[in-house]
């Protein structure tokens, strides 16, 4: 049992495994960017052989990042991270708690000197100078005398032993938060025409309907452009309702989602709802007497006369002359049929005398009324992404911890310096030793700096 456990422990505590998992995850990610994933995978149908598609599906290569085997890789990395950290933490803690050395040469961990030289300045001055400098640069210093010898010890950054563990804890929290988000959160989408409302959104992927605990209504969608035609702003004005009661209102822009009762709404898409209907306007001596949204078969009465209008046909492009409606007018005097073209002004301009030759194209045939046709106002719809992720604060915390830990790893270093000064009459005999846990270059710079300070000429007291 214990042997098995040991084998397990050794396997999961190796950095080789970490690097192997890094490579495996990186390789899987490369595949994931080259093989079309999820919705994009469907575009492959018909372009490559069904056998290959079947293979991609079986190996879950069309949805790598949510596949079982990729999840297992991530889980292994988590386990590896956890075991590694647990395995190495006691050693780091021992280093942290025992590493504090002492100025005394017989203290544990006291190293052999790295540098020995004779300085010109007398001992008391050198000792006082070093004491000040070290105090300023290290914070913790120990200054003792042993007979004529001055012993100095300074250290800083002992906490840096914990840096890697802080980073690892941060990453575990991020991954934990991501899993929680995957299980507890959801991502949905809905499209709403201006003036429309809904309480249902459709889940990303499965397209399953999900009811929201309130109703959303799109009051208006607007878009703005720069002078050069580049889009400048997409904006949806949204109301939140419960039954008939207005709960809240707000607007959603790209980069500015709207939060309501734990749900976040994002501007994701927009479009125009095409409207096949047209608007027919009737004027009498330039005065508008009727305006009607029409479809094929619509009927309405003309005010002022006992005449009825019926739309016999509605064409989107009649005789290549654009949208047109065939109108039938029944009145006590006569029954009339003629065509009303949306672009009649342009048609007449291009074909002078047309109306004389073909009175059936004259929109003013039923005098004194003039008919005109215009497209019914089309509306925008807005595409909103709706999601909820209760684990977001966890992920943010993890990311902060990770970044702080990284700064701790690379900007803090356990740096220790031992200095022994011995009186040599006019000058001082100096021995200097330094140790660190990561940043050797930094330590060497520190020792060079101290050497320079010790050797620099000091103004002699008057």
């Amino acid at each position: 049992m214990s042997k098995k456990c040991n084998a397990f422990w050794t396997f999961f505590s190796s950095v080789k495994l970490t690097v192997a998992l890094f490579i495996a995850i990186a390789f899987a990610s490369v595949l994931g960017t080259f093989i079309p994933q999820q919705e994009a995978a469907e575009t492959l149908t018909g372009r490559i052989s069904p056998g290959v598609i079947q293979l991609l599906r079986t190996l879950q290569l069309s949805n790598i990042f949510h596949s079982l085997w990729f999840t297992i890789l991530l889980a292994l990395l988590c386990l590896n991270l956890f075991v590694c950290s647990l395995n190495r933490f006691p050693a780091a803690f021992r280093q942290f708690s025992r590493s504090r050395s002492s100025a005394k040469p017989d203290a544990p961990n006291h190293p052999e000197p790295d540098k020995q030289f004779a300085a010109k300045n007398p001992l008391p001055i050198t000792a006082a100078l070093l004491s000040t400098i070290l105090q300023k640069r290290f914070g913790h210093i120990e200054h003792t005398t042993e007979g004529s010898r001055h012993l100095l010890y300074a250290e800083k950054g002992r906490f840096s032993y914990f840096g890697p563990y802080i980073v690892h804890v941060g990453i575990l929290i991020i991954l934990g938060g991501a899993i929680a988000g995957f299980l507890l959160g959801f991502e949905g989408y809905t499209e709403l025409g201006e003036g429309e409302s809904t309480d249902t959104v459709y889940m990303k992927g499965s397209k399953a309907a999900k009811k929201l605990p309130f109703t959303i209504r799109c009051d208006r969608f607007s878009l703005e452009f720069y002078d050069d035609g580049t889009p400048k702003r997409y904006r949806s004005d949204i109301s939140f309702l419960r039954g008939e009661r207005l709960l809240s209102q707000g607007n959603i822009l790209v980069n500015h989602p709207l939060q309501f009762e734990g749900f976040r709404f994002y501007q994701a898409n927009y479009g125009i709802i095409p409207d096949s209907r047209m608007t027919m306007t009737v004027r009498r001596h330039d005065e508008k007497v009727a305006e009607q949204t029409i479809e094929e078969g619509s009927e309405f009465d003309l005010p002022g006369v006992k005449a009825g209008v019926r739309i016999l046909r509605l064409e989107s492009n009649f005789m290549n002359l654009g949208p047109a409606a065939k109108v039938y007018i029944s009145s006590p005097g006569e029954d009339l049929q003629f065509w009303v073209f949306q672009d009649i002004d342009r048609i007449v301009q291009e074909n002078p005398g047309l109306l004389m030759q073909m009175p059936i194209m004259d929109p003013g045939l039923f005098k004194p009324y003039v008919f005109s046709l215009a497209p019914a106002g089309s509306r925008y719809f807005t595409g909103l992404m709706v999601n909820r992720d209760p684990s977001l604060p966890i992920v943010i915390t993890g990311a902060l911890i990770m970044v702080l830990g990284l700064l701790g790893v690379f900007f803090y270093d356990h740096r220790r310096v031992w200095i022994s000064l011995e009186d040599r009459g006019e000058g001082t005999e100096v021995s200097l030793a330094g140790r660190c846990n990561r940043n050797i270059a930094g330590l060497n710079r520190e020792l060079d700096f101290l050497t320079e300070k010790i050797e620099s000429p000091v103004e002699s007291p008057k």
Partner: protein
Amino acid sequence: MSHTSILSWVTFVYFVSFLFYLLSMLRSEAFWGRIATGTALAGYVAHTLALIIRWIASYRLGIGHVPLANFYESLIFFAWAVVLLYLLIEWRTRNRSPGAFVVPCAFLAMAMASLSPGVDSRIQPLIPALQSNWLTSHVVTCFLAYAAFTVAFALGIMFFLKRGEVSKQNGLKRFRELIPHPEVLDELIYQCAVMGFILLTLGIVTGSVWAHYAWGSYWSWDPKETWSLITWLIYAALLHARLVRRWRGGPLALMAVCGFAAVLFTYFGVNLLPGLHTYLQT
């Protein structure tokens, strides 16, 4: 002079600076080295000015935004970051030899921006998806990271040149002698990788926050996101190899070169794949 013509000149100046760095390596004369640094510095100052002028010009057009919003602007900023990083390293290490390897990278990015036919150098208004306060922090962190990885790559190439077989040609021998000691290169590669890694992490985090506001999801396996994760994993492997397994030198330099290939694909290659990050397409 308009900012685009200044930038064309800067491209040329970087090329000249590269030639001077090369000359100083081949002839091992400090004089040419100083000229090279001077040229690079002059180009860098003009480059910075042009960026500021472009920024101001966008406000004059009434569509003011940081010049970080399209492919052209990203290339210009990338080159700017590479030169900045290089000049800092030259100043810190007092060694000019990386100039012959890093400055041409900046030159290539500039040349691509100025000469590539598909790259639109006009100032364009911000589309709704880019109208966010996160634009600056996300783009700056990501491109500084790319710049750090570029420098690490150039240092990796230097590492292999230094270690390679001794050549009979005298000029090349001297050239190699001027490349810093492999241990120094190793340390510099590591430091650049660390810097790039921290910045890339910040870039991914700020990008996630932005994606949360813009796309409604902090992570959606968009190709750019996925490739930045791949890059992140490669450099994470490099740092673990060095800090935990105590790898040094060759393997590390090799990983810096491989990591850079991933950076290039994240920057350019992803545009060929369909996805949400289409702002950089030309």
